[in-house]
């Protein structure tokens, strides 16, 4: 069976269900798992929350339960997704993760393709990363959440540092707004948010403040967004 989850549930909750169902596999419902549209959320809506609902409905027969982040560490969308799925009969374990003790980070700041960095960080929600990676001088920055479409990440050099909520995930403090706001002012940074997400306000504000590039994307990344990022990386 599968145990679905979204966001960054507290580690003790993940561990409790792993012990209880040792042969179950954890599946991150935030990701694009190619589920067909369920039609349960509006068309103009955050693609990540849409993924959560669509994936859960698609995997319904295999899902034993879902562990869903509904606190400040996620968003209202997570809270509402939990309500919708509970209404549909899913067992949803609602979690809030107010952790404030920052664990050391190293994936965000190492020399590694950006998509691999973000994959490792999202994977660390279920299996803690114990490897320490060597720090590299940043040439560029990527601020934001793991995007729906990873093609965007292929444009960045491997010396790109990761900031924003994704860094909070590696540090195991997903509700730590002050860490989310931290960037290196001298590093040319792309500030990314998923369309229709409240984090767009932060991304735009920080991009203005640090002379970065603000972008948002809905589903698949568009040519104009790819061109903006490519030009920014080449010319800055």
């Amino acid at each position, binding site marked *: 069976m599968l145990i679905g989850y979204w966001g960054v549930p507290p580690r003790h909750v993940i561990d409790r269900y792993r012990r209880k169902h040792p042969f179950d596999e954890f599946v991150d419902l935030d990701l694009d798992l190619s589920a067909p549209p369920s039609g349960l959320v509006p068309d103009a809506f955050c693609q990540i929350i849409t993924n959560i609902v669509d994936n859960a409905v698609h995997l319904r027969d295999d899902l034993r339960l879902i562990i869903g982040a509904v606190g400040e560490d996620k968003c209202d969308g997570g809270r509402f997704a939990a309500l919708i799925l509970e209404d549909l009969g899913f067992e949803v374990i609602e979690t809030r993760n107010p952790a404030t003790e920052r664990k050391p980070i190293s994936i965000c700041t190492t020399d590694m393709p950006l998509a691999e960095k973000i994959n490792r960080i999202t994977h660390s929600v279920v299996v803690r990363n114990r490897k320490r990676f060597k720090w590299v001088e940043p040439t560029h920055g990527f601020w934001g959440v793991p995007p729906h479409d990873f093609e965007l990440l292929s444009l960045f050099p491997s010396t790109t540092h990761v900031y924003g909520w994704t860094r909070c995930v590696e540090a195991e403090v997903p509700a730590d707004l002050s860490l989310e706001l931290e960037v290196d002012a001298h590093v040319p940074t792309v500030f990314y948010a998923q369309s229709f997400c409240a984090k767009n306000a932060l991304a735009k504000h920080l991009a203005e403040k640090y002379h970065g590039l603000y972008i948002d994307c809905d589903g698949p990344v*568009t040519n104009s967004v790819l061109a*903006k990022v490519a*030009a920014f990386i080449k010319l800055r």
Partner: protein
Amino acid sequence: MPMPTIIADCGSSWSKIRNLDVNEVLIVPTRQVLADESIRFDVATGHLARSRTDRYENELVALAQGSLKLVQEDDFTVVDIGSRDTKFVRFTNRKLDKLDWNQACGATTGFTLELLGKYYDVDYGKLPVSDQRLPVTCGVFAIERIFDSIIQGDSAQEALAAFVHGVAFNVHTFAQKPDRLYVSGGLCANRCFLDSLWKYCEVIPLGREVLLEGLY
């Protein structure tokens, strides 16, 4: 890298093709380029040229590089208005400071201008600037507003001039409201547009070949 011979900027409506050997520029409808699969370029920009060129350059990079060749100031902003979209680059101390590419909101305004100009047989070179400004969200909404305006008794000329004013206002806002704005693209030949833009800033047209300049 060897010097290219044939370079092109293939926009959604028009393709600008330069032969560097004789330094001639040909401007043809892009549909003609698409129809003739034998046409190839050494270096090109524009999504439609991607499969027709040995080396492809991103349009924003071409705009930025071309702007740096054509403008000698330290701090300046260039906006390129195409048929389908609008792009801008801003330099501070001749280093790229800000860029954007507006493809969704504000889309197809250039194309709409050309389409309606032909439909109503309006010469933008002679069209007086309007003090009225139609709100222009995108080409489709603009057409609706223009038709509404004509139904309410405005002439096609008045409605189009107000639309042009709306486009100029949006372009200035999109380019972050500079005091001086360099303009690239086909609208450099649209006097009504340039004069409307003058209501908001100093305007310096650069012509249609800025992206070509950025390719070599």
